[in-house]
């Protein structure tokens, strides 16, 4: 298992998981989101071929009011 962080919370996932799998594991499937891995934006098209490594830091964001 790999230890990663999603929105600053620790999470254990299967080795060799890709970003697409993480998103569903984390419960964000079907949601309006955008994602960055280790501070770098990852386009939707790259979710499935983005393999996660230990200590990866994933940001999953959703729309909110802003000024």
């Amino acid at each position, binding site marked *: 298992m790999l230890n990663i962080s999603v*929105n600053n919370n620790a999470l254990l996932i299967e080795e060799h998981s890709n970003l697409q799998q993480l998103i569903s594991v984390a419960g964000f499937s079907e949601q*309006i989101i955008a994602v960055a891995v280790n501070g770098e934006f990852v386009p939707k098209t790259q979710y499935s071929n983005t393999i996660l490594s230990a200590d990866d830091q994933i*940001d999953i964001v*959703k*729309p*909110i*009011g*802003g*000024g």
Partner: protein
Amino acid sequence: MQDLANNNADLLTLYDETFNSRFLLGTALYRSPSEMCEAIKASESEFITLSLRRQNPQQNKGDSFWQMIKETGCKLLPNTAGCKSAKEAINLAEMSRELFDTPWIKLEVIGDDYNLQPDPFELVIAAKELISRGFKVLPYCTDDLVLCLRLRDVGCQALMPWGAPIGTGQGLLNKYHLQSLRERITDIPLIIDAGLGCPSQAAAALEMGYDAVLLNTAVAKADNPVLMARAFSLAISAGRAGYLAGLMQRRQTAAPSTPILGQPFWHQNSL
């Protein structure tokens, strides 16, 4: 005339897109989403800011908020609020472009947690990069003329200098600098972003020749945000009309409006 004052015939152009309204409104801090929607409608704004934040999957808030925003029919202006480096801002801008499907970005790179001012150095780096990636960048900047000239040089087709620090409502703190800025930068629109607290300040910005106003707190934190949105909308139209109508020259000494000639009761012998 009516048209001009209503800005029908007097459009705001940003990156070759035109807008009837010169009022850009934020979507944060409202007591409720419905209040927000009413305020947006009352503001007659066509261009509203919003943002992206980490949320739990359980929080459906993001999605419902998103629904309501879409129903306003307004053009969206995602911001990079809270980002502290060019790198953070650039990546959040990319995430916004994908999620909101828009090249527009209100570029915010905060340089100090105390006054939340823009970081002139990171801001120029981020603006240059995002322009090169095809974004339509509206940078939240200070009233520093040299910074503004650099942002224009890297390709920004509009600038958004602050009036005062975010959320203070202090108004146009440095009218002298804002005036110089407007006199020096005449080829692209200038929008006052942040620091305005009351409608008269927005009117003053337009009277000085600024092209538009962006604000959030002054409306959302009013006792009656919907009426306040209307108030700012009117003030912005008023200031714009005042600018177009050509303000009278300020005079140091008094001058009667009613003619002196023919003043009754005056007689030779009263001299």
